[in-house]
């Protein structure tokens, strides 16, 4: 598998494509995150080039969610520094947030509102253009159900609303943290469709998932364990 940027393959470590900072979607330097006394991320160095589709794998507690939280700016590093889409993690948060979409553990929906109302509210926070709400709901197959309250939705339907939310804008960075958990096949396909569409646009995708049947679109896989990035545990014979 070749890194997605032009570089001298002899000079780069197997897990690290060589990119200039300006080309990076993500650039983390010795990022460490501690919760209380528990280190969740330990000295993580990471470069992700624009347009890459990065798959992050690892056991429970490996730090995948924490890593995505740092990239999404919902978590601040305890030590270390980094930038996302060219903006610093500590000072450029609003700029990052404007260009990034996170599909995470929580669907971030308001139970008593309908899907349509949830999306319209989200759109209003980004400038008020609600014209893409209806097409987005149609695209994920929630057109007719769009006026029912989210409280009655299945997990699959909720995740499809999250996918529709990502379709409202064209984020330069799409982050997904275990998006497939508890979903039916239709909803999983919806998520995959979003990933493909985002990658086809040339935007960057970082996907963390347990699900071994998913992640085929990924160009590179990152393995994590105990808060660190580790070499491929399956290395020795199997191509990443």
């Amino acid at each position, binding site marked *: 598998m070749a890194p997605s940027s032009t570089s001298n393959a002899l000079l780069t470590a197997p897990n690290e494509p060589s990119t200039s900072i300006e080309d990076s979607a993500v650039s983390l*330097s*010795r990022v*460490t995150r*501690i*919760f*209380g*006394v528990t*280190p969740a991320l*330990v*000295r993580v160095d990471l470069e992700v080039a624009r347009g890459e589709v990065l798959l992050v794998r690892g056991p429970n507690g490996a730090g995948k969610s924490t890593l995505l939280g740092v990239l999404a700016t919902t978590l*601040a*590093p*305890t*030590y*270390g*520094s980094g930038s996302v889409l060219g903006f610093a*993690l*500590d000072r450029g948060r609003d700029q990052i947030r404007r260009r990034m979409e996170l599909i995470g553990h929580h669907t971030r929906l308001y139970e008593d509102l309908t899907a349509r109302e949830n999306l319209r509210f989200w759109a209003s926070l980004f400038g008020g253009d609600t014209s893409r709400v209806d097409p987005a709901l149609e695209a994920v197959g929630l057109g007719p159900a769009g006026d029912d309250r989210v409280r009655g939705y299945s997990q699959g339907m909720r995740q499809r609303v999250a996918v529709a939310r990502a379709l409202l804008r064209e984020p330069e960075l799409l982050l997904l943290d275990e998006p497939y958990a508890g979903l039916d096949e239709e909803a999983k396909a919806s998520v995959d469709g979003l990933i493909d569409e985002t990658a086809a646009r040339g935007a960057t995708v970082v996907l963390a998932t347990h699900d071994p049947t998913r992640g085929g679109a990924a160009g590179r896989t990152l393995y994590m364990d105990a808060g660190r990035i580790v070499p491929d545990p399956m290395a020795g014979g199997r191509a990443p």
Partner: protein
Amino acid sequence: MGVPTGERLMGKATARRGERILGWTSLVAVAVTLIMSLLVVPPDASQGNVQRLMYVHVPAAWLAYLSFFVVFVSSIAYLVTKRIRWDRLAAASAEAGVLFTALTIALGMLWGKPVWGAWWTWDPRLTTTAILLLLYIGYLAVRRLPESPARRARWAAVVGIVAFVDVPIVQLSVTWWRSLHQGPTVRLLGTSTIAPIMLTTLLIAVGAFTVLYCYLIVLRLRVGRLEERAVAEALSPRIGVPVADVMDAPGEEAVARG
């Protein structure tokens, strides 16, 4: 904090000596205060010996509010600079403040029972001090909530700032409320004139308790650092960050230092 080890060690030794001097000074000063207020000063003309409680009650009240002011200023300093030392100071001052506030109220009640015949008469200043005690308790309760030190510091700082800003408004409202039914208030003296020896004793008392406050703060900060050092020494090898940096920066300044 790239201070060479030699300088750090000497700094620590000087700090310990300074702390000891402070401790002995406050002990002596408080002892002098007690001697003067109990033995030297004559009893008040109308209140009698009970009035001697004022020589501790007044300084305690002064410190109750001074401590909160320190909490307020440190909280602002933390939010502005993000250096964890300000949060440590705020926490230490809050702990000292609770003690002085409780002491103020207890002495006020002890004084009130013989003088007014009642434990509590909703005196505006005592009532405000009681609310101050509740605010301190709320502040300390918030400090126990978050797991992350940076979040704890930030939440506590917000509470410290907002609560302090509220105190003058509380004071004003309670005073107005009380003034509608003029009742007995805490008076320093029964008579209207203050003898020089009484004034001197009072000033010594205020000074002594202020020194005591400083000693308590220094002591608490050192104990706090010991606790944090134990945690940092456990954490440091796991994350490859030097112990000193772990202790000094469980906050966002670490981001800048990388």
